[in-house]
């Protein structure tokens, strides 16, 4: 009996706990900006979202300096091989539930340099690698755009937090 209890305590957080924590996150998330080697186009649009015309602070979203305080990592850039260790470090520091918003065509699919020798090619290529290292990402959302408009970023945050259902769907038509 004691053995069973001990094993239960040492288990990783169960799915049920995560759901509860996620529900609490529905409103004001704190975001951490993670630049993995982008051209800065999407980064200045992220800063632009804070300025008066778009004013994301009306939703309570705040930009924080340390990943330890953050709920969401705003990832821009195609993840260059030199920046990859920093990405690992920063994502590890974010406490569970860990959410990542991949902003821009570089973060989603590697962008115009997806086949270069010094880029890994976007978030979807590293998710499995991070899982092997023990870094689980609980929810991901992808925001295409080059650079992604501030309105698209707000829409992306809403999709990430499950406030809106995504509009795009896979389509296959015959010519």
């Amino acid at each position: 009996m004691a053995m069973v209890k001990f094993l239960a305590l040492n288990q990783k957080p169960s799915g049920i706990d995560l759901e509860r924590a996620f529900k609490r996150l529905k409103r004001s998330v704190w975001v951490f900006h993670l630049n993995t080697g982008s051209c800065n186009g999407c980064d200045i649009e992220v800063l632009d979202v804070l300025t008066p015309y778009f004013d994301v602070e009306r939703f309570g979203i705040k930009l924080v300096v340390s990943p330890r305080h953050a709920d969401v990592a705003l990832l821009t850039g195609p993840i260059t091989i030199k920046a990859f260790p920093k990405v690992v470090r920063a994502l590890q520091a974010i406490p569970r539930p860990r959410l990542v918003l991949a902003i821009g065509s570089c973060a989603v699919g590697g962008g115009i340099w997806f086949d270069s020798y010094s880029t890994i090619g976007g978030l979807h290529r590293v998710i499995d690698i991070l899982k092997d290292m023990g870094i689980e990402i609980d929810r991901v959302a992808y925001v295409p755009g080059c650079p992604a408009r501030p309105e698209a970023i707000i829409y992306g945050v809403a999709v990430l937090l499950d406030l809106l259902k995504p509009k795009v769907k896979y389509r296959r038509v015959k010519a």
Partner: protein
Amino acid sequence: MIRVKFVKIVGTSLKKGTVTIKYPYEKPLITSEFRGKIEVDPAKCTGCGACTRICPPKALYLVKEGDNLVIRYFIGRCIFCAMCADICPQKAISVSHEFELATDDIASLYEDIEHDLVKCACGKAFAPKKLVNEVIEKTKLPPHLLTLCPECRRVETVKRLSFRLLGVKW
């Protein structure tokens, strides 16, 4: 005595008021020229692949699936430059104002257009049916040569020429 001139900013703020556009409850700040997602008209597309050759990030690319040729559009890598719309000879690609493309499933960012391929007498499927029909319509070249794959076409052309010019039958 410090000159407190900078307090003027309060006046500026009050005069300006609020400029925030409360997206998503209000309409976003888009001009008529904005380039959003492209729409490919499957009726007009002939599968020539010109768009796949000019696309800088290769977001439009060709995939051969058995006897079908698929033109795949990966929205995730698109840079919204609209070069494909400029270069399409059939004007099948149009640019929309759509930017609300966020999703949590990356597989939903793909759009496919399937083309049937013409099969040569030798069995090789070499070009989309619509493209071959287009070439037959627009050029004066004989249809019986155009429905052959390039290798067979070469052989057939030499055969016919050598018969016509030299009287040699292969």
